[in-house]
């Protein structure tokens, strides 16, 4: 049809039978087989921007904290008559000055620097959900079945050696243009709705529908 197109004739669709109404797609997704699609360009940009904004916000907050602490310190120091030194700014600066790699692996380690059996214990969402857990001094304290607590935190950028011992790296979360990946690679949170298997929320139920 394109070959025999007559340039004098306006391009009007033929007045044939009414088009069949379009039927929409029906697809299903499940956790086993569905794989994330490639992020679109716009999404990659938006994500990077969001990360940058987050970093900026953190930086700003850190700067504000510095301000507050400095004020607190100056006030105290007025009495002891000493000069003002700022430590936190230096720390914040190291996040940016240090040549941070583009991607940093976070390993969940205990207070001896050994990989935790369950990497989720460093994940805030998970750790919070464990009854009796709490966060202190940069560590999540998770009650152990054998009594007492295990202490866990993420190590960023360390190297895993023999026996699961992680060397190098830092406990300070990197900021800026760095993507943090856990070994399971999660960046999207799931399970915030519904009844997760093994959960106790809502007790037994037979259907969420109406009465």
């Amino acid at each position, binding site marked *: 049809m394109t070959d025999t197109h007559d340039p004098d004739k306006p391009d009007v669709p033929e007045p044939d039978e009414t088009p069949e109404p379009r039927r929409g797609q029906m697809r299903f997704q*499940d956790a086993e087989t569905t794989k*994330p699609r490639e992020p679109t360009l716009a999404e990659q940009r938006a994500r990077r921007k969001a990360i940058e904004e987050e970093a900026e916000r953190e930086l700003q907050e850190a700067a504000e904290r510095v301000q507050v602490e400095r004020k607190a310190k100056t006030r105290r120091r007025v009495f002891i008559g000493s000069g003002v030194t700022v430590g936190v700014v230096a720390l914040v600066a190291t996040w940016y000055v240090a040549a941070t790699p583009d991607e940093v692996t976070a390993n969940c380690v205990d207070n001896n620097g050994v990989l935790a059996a369950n990497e989720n214990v460093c994940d805030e969402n998970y750790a919070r959900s464990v009854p009796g857990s709490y966060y202190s001094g940069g560590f999540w304290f998770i009650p152990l079945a054998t009594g007492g607590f295990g202490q866990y935190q993420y190590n960023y950028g360390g190297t895993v050696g023999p026996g699961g011992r992680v060397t190098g790296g830092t406990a300070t979360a990197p900021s800026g243009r760095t993507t943090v990946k856990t070994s399971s690679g999660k960046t999207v949170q799931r399970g915030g709705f519904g009844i997760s298997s093994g959960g106790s929320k809502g007790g037994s139920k037979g*259907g969420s529908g109406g009465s």
Partner: protein
Amino acid sequence: MESQGLVYGTPARDGTGAARPYWDESVHYVLEMDEVLSIEADVELLHSMCLGAVDNVVITERYKDFGIPEWVWPGIAESWRRRDPHVYGRFDLRYDGSGPAKLLEYNADTPTSLLEAAVLQWFWKTEVFPDDDQWNSIHEKLVERFTEIGDQLPSNELHFTWSSADPTGEDHVTTAYLQETAAESGLDTIGLAIEEIGWDPLLKRFVDLEEAPMNTILKLYPWEWVIDEEFGRHAVASLPHTMWIEPLWKMLLSNKALLAILWEMHPGHPNLLPAFIDDPGMLTEYVRKPRLGREGANIQIVAPGYETETGGVYGREGYVYQAFDPLPEFDGYRPALGAWIVGDSSAGLGIRETAGLVTDDGAAFVPHRIPQT
């Protein structure tokens, strides 16, 4: 019947507690056309009264009577002012063939028994009484409704979601059926369990398992559970960027406090039973219903000779008291009419029967027909 998708059919119970098939076509109801027309008119009237009630509650900010947490109030008001599109609901009515139909309750958010009403009983009628009619245009109206609201949605793609924790499969089947009607209207649909919905904390949006954004989410999962869960605040904050169906304002309709509000606004209305919040008031014979109860759970009947109470896990959110008007009895069973509304028009009927006074999850679905005159 299983070939048409009825995989759940939890066995119903008869008067002695013995098992009875959930789909029971050994009996059926016969309704006259004029009865149907009159109930149909009542249903549309009830629907408009309900919309009036939402407007009233939003204007007077009476959310407290509904036991809704305060942080959700602005979301409900905005959802109503925007007129976020609604799709369907089911009125449960008491009807004995003589007086006007009385509203027992309104399942406006997550109504079930949809497939039975829309499809199964239609096949039954076509096979057994091919010349008769049935009050049933549910399927066509759903397709029509999805066509209508298509323009108001953020995109042409809808995600349908149910809880995979429902062991009977009823929620999944119902959702898949809705998905089919939407697809028939030309929308692209994706089904996934609500447990699989992801939240992207950086881009602040819900994503499916492909990590693609979810623009419209049709949930067969009650709003009061959604807002109570970890992502609940994200769901409310995501409006109207992400459209949720049924809309958030339906929280005011799927709550039994609605019954009291309706009675307050229309005292003595022939389609209503007197109802009050938190206190039976002047009622001496009444039914106590939890504000957010489902499937006939935690219902208590206080009336001489009728004392009944059902168990369940509801009621923490308080109760509503409705005048007791027992369901009529036919051959030992008591039917409750489930009148479907799709969009703003009455769409069809499904009848559920119980041996007892409370239409609970032990009710059986019974088809109906309208004889040719």
